[in-house]
């Protein structure tokens, strides 16, 4: 069991994606970078960041951090929402598109985000397999 968004969790997530997902079949050779801004993370309601970057379907970076300097990476898409929303998305209870419709996620570059929803959902489906303590 690893803590959601911890360094160990990020390591496991990266390993899992690299070993289990096919960059063409599963990740559709996508080129994108996505910064999730996760608000109200317990126990002290701080903000955490979860950044991923893909080049041609290759996972280049997967970083979790509480340091807001990560914003300087200028991700192509940012998704901002509450911790509970991200838990629901990461554990496969709700798609990120539905969270958007339900007004639980604020997104920049929505059109691009929607074109990569399928591979991103596959990505989430993969990391959902990590034994995680939320």
């Amino acid at each position, binding site marked *: 069991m690893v803590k959601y968004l911890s360094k160990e969790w990020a390591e496991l997530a990266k390993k899992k994606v690299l070993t289990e997902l096919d960059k063409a079949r599963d990740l559709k050779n996508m080129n994108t970078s996505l910064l999730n801004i996760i608000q109200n993370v317990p126990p002290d309601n701080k903000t955490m960041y979860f950044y991923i970057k893909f080049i041609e379907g290759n996972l280049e970076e997967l970083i979790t951090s509480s340091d807001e300097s990560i914003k300087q990476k200028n991700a192509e898409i940012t998704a901002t929402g509450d911790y509970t929303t991200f838990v629901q998305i990461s554990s496969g209870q709700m*798609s990120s598109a539905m969270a*958007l*419709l339900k007004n*639980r996620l604020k997104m920049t570059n929505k059109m691009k985000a929607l*074109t990569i929803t399928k591979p991103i959902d596959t990505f989430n489906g993969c990391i959902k397999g990590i034994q995680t303590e939320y």
Partner: protein
Amino acid sequence: MNLSDVLETTKKEPHCGLCKIDFLGTGVCSAGKKHGFVAYWPEGRMELARALAENEVEPSVALLDVVNSCNLCGVCDRQCYFITQRRPTKAQQALKDYVTTLPPNSLKSTPEDEIVKDLRTIVGNNWATNDPIIIASYIRSIIKQKSLGKYYIVMPQTTEEIVAIVKLANKYKIPYLPRGNGTFFGVALQTLLAEPATIEQGIIIDLWRMKDLHVDPETITATIGPGVTSFELQKAAHAHKLRANVAEAESCVCANAQNLGIVTTWSNTYGWGTDNFIDAEYIDSTGTIQHLSDKDIPNPYASEQGLLSLSLIPSVIITKLTLKLHEILDDEQAVFVPFTTLPEALDLAHELAKRNIGISLAVLSRKYLTEFISPTHEIAEDFNFIAEKYLKLNYVVDVICDAQNKKIVEELAEVSFDHAMLKSLILGSSKLASMKESSLLKTIAEEENPLKAVFGGPMRKHFEKGLASSPQELAKVFPEDLRDFFEKLYSKPELTNPVWLHSFRILPCRMERKHMWMYRGGYMPGDKKTILKVIDALEKPAQTYNIDGAFGFLSYLERGKLAHLEYDYYYDHTDPDARKRVNKAIVESWRRQFAIKGVTPLEFICSKGLHRKEHILYPFLPGLSEEELEHFEELIETLFGGEDTW
């Protein structure tokens, strides 16, 4: 009586919520008034009877309380029969009989959990619950059918209580959702909008108790709480010879304001959206109270546009709204101009809009006219048939204006009719229906211009004579035990007064008598070409998926520069196949509407109502490109999931 005996009725119950307001002067359900929760209102009893019959909920002790609180006084039958031809007392009787079949002492009370305890600390013991029976009464009018989530219902009375509820929801990390009268949900929850419009678990904040209402005749404004309905506000305004620009009687004004911005036939003069909103108090997602007039809030007019702006969950809860009211003129009158074709009707209506004629102005369909004014759906169908086949009356330009403008309309129109003829049509509707095969109607149909013959020519006298009827005559179409009531009701002048009916809007839910419907349409440039294109974009999918679709009404904004169109899909929401077809038709109609420049489908106005309309409708969107249209289905699938999940 078994629950299954009334299942046909309870399943089709549309959740119009009119039983919660005193729109006929009968008073309302005393149990509902006392206990508040939907379960105690006729609407909720019907839903409970359905949910129990379909094994969606287990009975608890609360069921006894709900059932025993009804004394079968019959007020709800009068109200409900007038609108939807249903008799809630039958469902109540079935519930009473059902309770007697349960083994003694078999009902358990629902244990409190931490969340409900905390909610009760905020609002008092009587106004928060986690009881499955009370919760079940909210199914299909804010809770998605067959949802497995854990819900709480809370009925706050003050802004401060809502602040505390929002903070509590945040503490427990569960979502919350405000409910006015649930009528938007009643329609949307039957469609693919159900999932995005609801919460999968959490706290339902039923705002019904928040009925503060203050009219200030000096500033010609009203300030209201979120539980105030359109009817209640209109009544209070009329006491000062003022009028509010409000939609159908049962909708809560704050809900309507944030949801759709309140568009009506009066929008021709009174406007839409912030044209009517002066200030609002609202609570954001952190539980902070804000006001539209605060200088430091994020730009309240900023708003997204287009396909990806769809959001059906409000981002704030409005707890107080100050609206403009409008003075009622002494010489307001109605005038109706009948047409056979829509382009002709649009030409006249647009001309009037451009010249600012018509305090209320709309193009109304035959379907609306006949359904609204007929006392039963069967009569409406016959009336509809007669209007189409014999009278060639398919559209009406429907105007409320002063005496001077009435003259102008009458001069511009080849034929027209007014209050007196409408009264004859209302009281004589059953007589008219019985004339379906009459020689008089056949003779009229043979005229070169039947509309002219009936409403302007030599046949008018015969037609009026044929229609001549009285409230007593009309009352015969109602069940025997309700006839006295309906005779008295139809003797009241307002029931046949078009100005009153346009202001108080008690009739629109008659559309829900037979089947459910889904509103389609939206906002667009006011030119005829665009309007006709949009109608085609809505009609084609209805035809493709075998849905009964019909033009509803069109009103103009800003002197005809913009138009709001309502086109409806009628379908049996208890038939899974019909639901699938309607969903497909909705998606296809979005695709077609978004291809037209400047068109914003109705759903894409949702939750943007307090914002100034300019920021939603302008700049006119160019229409999706070929490439975007090619990916449309994929996009919809991404947003809403595949059709299996709808």
